[in-house]
């Protein structure tokens, strides 16, 4: 077309426009993509600002040390106490039960999948674990309350209808896929030469797995456990449905407990007016929850980054 027009002038003009357009588009696209990436940064800033503004209102009326040391949590009662310890103890209790279930089970399955299982077995087991991970937490909550608690009550007759044990165990099943897949990733990046060195010295498969591969992958495994712990602390619906409520510090898994997350649900569902001191408690609780999970996530991320950098070489 341009050649048919003949003259050199229109063609360079055309090329100039075309290139100009392409360059401009490159710039516009880059800025748009940067804006997309910044949404995530603003999300974090938004979370911190929203939680802080309301939590500051709360801490103006309730001193921080009282929040951290009072042993009762009764913001919705006539006689108000604002001690986070009962909620913290409930959260820790259910989370530790979840880890007791998911860590041993998850690590054994991870070692099996990484060191022993034939590819055909992995092909069946991995999707199964993904199905387990894909079940909505509300379903697990129903399962804990309606199925697991009655079964446990046959073993422990004194167990309350709402308790820490049942949601803890179910939460362990829920985070099992997370522990398994992250630990397996950590085991798999252990260099093959280490295993071969072990075999050359006459070690059995189990000895190689447990005393060479496992220790080499330890940092990655610890990262996966920390992440699972963070997930358990933040898990909401299972405990909101099956753990019940408590205003005191309680470490008996057969009794009902309040967790930080379940308390936030409880207040959000009720008719506590927005902006009151009782309502602002959820922001104080949420900022505590956020700090805990934030620290755990960062530690886990750091460990994983470092071990991946070493393991990849």
């Amino acid at each position, binding site marked *: 077309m341009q050649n048919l027009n003949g003259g050199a002038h229109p063609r360079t003009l055309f090329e100039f426009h075309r290139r100009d357009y392409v360059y401009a588009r490159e710039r516009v696209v880059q800025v748009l*993509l940067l804006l997309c990436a910044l949404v995530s940064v603003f999300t974090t800033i938004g979370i911190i600002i929203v939680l802080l503004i309301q939590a500051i209102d709360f801490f103006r009326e309730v001193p921080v040390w009282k929040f951290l040391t009072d042993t009762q949590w009764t913001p919705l009662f006539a006689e108000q106490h604002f001690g986070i310890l009962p909620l913290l103890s409930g959260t820790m209790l259910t989370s530790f039960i979840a880890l007791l279930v998911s860590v041993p089970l998850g690590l054994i399955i991870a070692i099996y999948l990484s060191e022993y299982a034939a590819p055909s077995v992995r092909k069946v087991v991995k999707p199964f674990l993904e*199905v387990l991970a894909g079940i*909505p937490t509300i379903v697990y909550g*129903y399962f804990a309350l309606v199925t697991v608690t009655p079964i446990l009550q046959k073993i422990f007759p004194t167990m309350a209808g709402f308790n820490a044990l049942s949601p803890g165990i179910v939460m362990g099943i829920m985070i099992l896929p997370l522990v398994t897949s992250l630990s397996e990733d950590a085991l798999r990046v252990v260099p093959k030469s280490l295993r071969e060195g072990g075999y050359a010295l006459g070690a059995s498969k189990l000895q190689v797995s447990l005393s060479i591969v496992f220790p080499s992958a330890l940092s990655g495994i610890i990262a996966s456990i920390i992440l699972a712990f963070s997930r358990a602390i933040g898990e909401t619906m299972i405990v909101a449905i099956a753990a019940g409520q408590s205003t005191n510090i309680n470490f008996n898994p057969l009794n009902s407990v309040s967790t930080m997350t379940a308390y936030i649900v409880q207040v959000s569902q009720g008719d506590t007016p927005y902006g009151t001191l009782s309502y602002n408690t959820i922001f104080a609780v949420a900022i505590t929850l956020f700090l805990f999970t934030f620290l755990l996530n960062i530690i886990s991320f750091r460990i994983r980054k470092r071990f991946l950098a070493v393991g990849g070489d």
Partner: protein
Amino acid sequence: MMNPFEIHAAKQRIKNILFKSIAIMGLLFALCVLILLLVNVAQNGLSRINIEFITSYPSRHPDQAGIVAGLVGSFYMVILTAIMAIPIGIGAAIYLEEYGRKNWIGRLIEINIANLAGVPSIVYGLLGLGLFVRWMALDRSILAGAMTMSLLIMPVIIISTREAIRAVPNGIREASYAVGATKWQTIWHHLLPISFPSILTGIILAISRAIGETAPLITIGALTYVTFLPNNLKSSFTILPIQIFNWVARPQQAFHQDAAAGIIVLLIVTLLLNSVAIILRNRFLR
């Protein structure tokens, strides 16, 4: 009579078999739990599944209650969430993978996204409450709910999309540049089409998560008793998981049956999406 070496070898062999059987028993235990869950839900809920249950509004009478409000609410919410979260999430992932520099800002954004993926969903709910419901005065609307949910699933989309783009061999990029393509042309015509199946897998998993999430929408105040369908972006709404939660929280056995029936519908939707994602990945990641 075995010599000490043979005894040692035999011991190791037994230990090996023992470990293997413990691991398989662990897997079987998890499988049994899953089966127990499914069987129990089916036993309690299947009798309530019928056309009326799907097309009725909630009711004080458990045998007349239905899930239509939650089902339609979930559907609209997921569509709105996808419209917002998918383009922004993919855009962010492209920027971080192809444009972002490896300086402190890049590291900060990366650690930020890793953390966001681990922030409890209920904290997103409080963000939505403060930011969308109150500050932007969207009220307890379906738009506020969908915006909250988009922020929640965005890290999931970003992380999976980044992995998908990273998996494209560098030779493709270099070949494209070599024939004079610009960066964006390379991304649009080569990187995105090649990584599309993996990106799609991540998106489906994220959407499946959005359908099952309950807690953040409870905090932003999605209603639990809704006898109408949302007809605009500012409508109040409910979603299926909240409807289920409402029924589970009641003491009456009959409402637990409604909850189980609702769970059957929810599980069919989420597990179907998950299996599509798994099949997609197995087909394309060879």
